[in-house]
C-alpha cells in the first residue's frame, strides 16, 4: 500500500470511530442512526481499499442503503422515548469494567496476530467470490437464504395489525346449540 492509501485508511478509521461514538453518545436516536450511517459508509470505502471491492459495494448497498433506512423508518413511526431516571446506574462501573477487560483481551489477541506473510493478494471480484460462495459454501449460502425467508415471515407475523387475540375458551351457549366453539 502506498502512503496515499495509508493516509486515506487512517482518515477513514478516525471517521468510523467518530460515527460510532456519535451513535452511542447522542441522545436523539435519529442522530444516532446518522452516526451509524457514517460508520457504515466509511467501512464500505475501507473495504474498497482492502482489495475487497465486492464486499465494499454490498456494504454500501445493504448497510448504508437498506438497514440504516429501515432504522430511520422505524424511528419516524414512533415518538422518541422520553428521558427516564436511570435504573441500572449502580451497574455502570461493572459495565465499563467489562468493556475495559474485553478491550485488554482483544489487544493481546491483536499483538499475537499482527504478523503477516508477504503474499500476493487477489481482489475479491464478484466472479471470485461467486465461485466460492456457490461452490464450496453452497450450503451456507442456501442456509442464509432460508434464514432470510424465515426472518421475513417472522417480521410480517410479528407486526401484523392487531386482530382480536384467538381465544381458546369454550362458549357454553354455542356448545348447547351443537355448533363448534370457535378456536
Amino acid at each position: 500500500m502506498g502512503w496515499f492509501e495509508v493516509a486515506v485508511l487512517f482518515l477513514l478509521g478516525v471517521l468510523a470511530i467518530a460515527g460510532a461514538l456519535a451513535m452511542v453518545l447522542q441522545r436523539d436516536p435519529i442522530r444516532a442512526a446518522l452516526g451509524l450511517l457514517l460508520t457504515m459508509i466509511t467501512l464500505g470505502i475501507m473495504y474498497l481499499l482492502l482489495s475487497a471491492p465486492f464486499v465494499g459495494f454490498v456494504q454500501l448497498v445493504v448497510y448504508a442503503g437498506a438497514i440504516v433506512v429501515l432504522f430511520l423508518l422505524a424511528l419516524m413511526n414512533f415518538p422518541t422515548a422520553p428521558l427516564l431516571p436511570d435504573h441500572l446506574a449502580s451497574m455502570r462501573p461493572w459495565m465499563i469494567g467489562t468493556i475495559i477487560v474485553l478491550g485488554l483481551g482483544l489487544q493481546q489477541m491483536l499483538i499475537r496476530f499482527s504478523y503477516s506473510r508477504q503474499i500476493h493478494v487477489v481482489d475479491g471480484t464478484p466472479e471470485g467470490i461467486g465461485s466460492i460462495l456457490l461452490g464450496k459454501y453452497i450450503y451456507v449460502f442456501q442456509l442464509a437464504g432460508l434464514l432470510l425467508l424465515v426472518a421475513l415471515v417472522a417480521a410480517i407475523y410479528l407486526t401484523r395489525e392487531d386482530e382480536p387475540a384467538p381465544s381458546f375458551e369454550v362458549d357454553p351457549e354455542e356448545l348447547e346449540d351443537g355448533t363448534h366453539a370457535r378456536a
Partner: protein
Amino acid sequence: MPVLEPASTAQSSLLIVSVILVLIGLGGVMLRRNPLVVLMSIELMLNAANLALITFARMYGGLHLEAQVIALIIMAVAAAEVGVGLALVVMIFRATPRADVDELHELHG
C-alpha cells in the same frame, strides 16, 4: 516454515479500529436504553467483525477469498437479525410508549 514479519502499520491499526468499534458497540448495548439504539449497537459490532475479517483476508488470505465470503454471509445474517429485531421493537413501542430495555421484564419468569 514461512517467515513472519510485522504487518504493515496500516493493517495493524485497522485491527485496532475494529477492536475500538466492538467496544463502542458493546458499550452501546449495555449503557443505552432505547431498544433501537441497542439494535444499532449490535449492528456496529457485527460490522467491526466484518472489518477484522476483511483485514485478515488482506493480511493472510492471499489467493483465497474465504474471509470475504464469510463477511458476506455475516451481512445476510445481520439483515435477518435487523428484520426480526425491528419487528420486535415495533411491538415494544406499541405495547409501552416509553420503551426502555431496562424496564421490560414481562418475560421474566
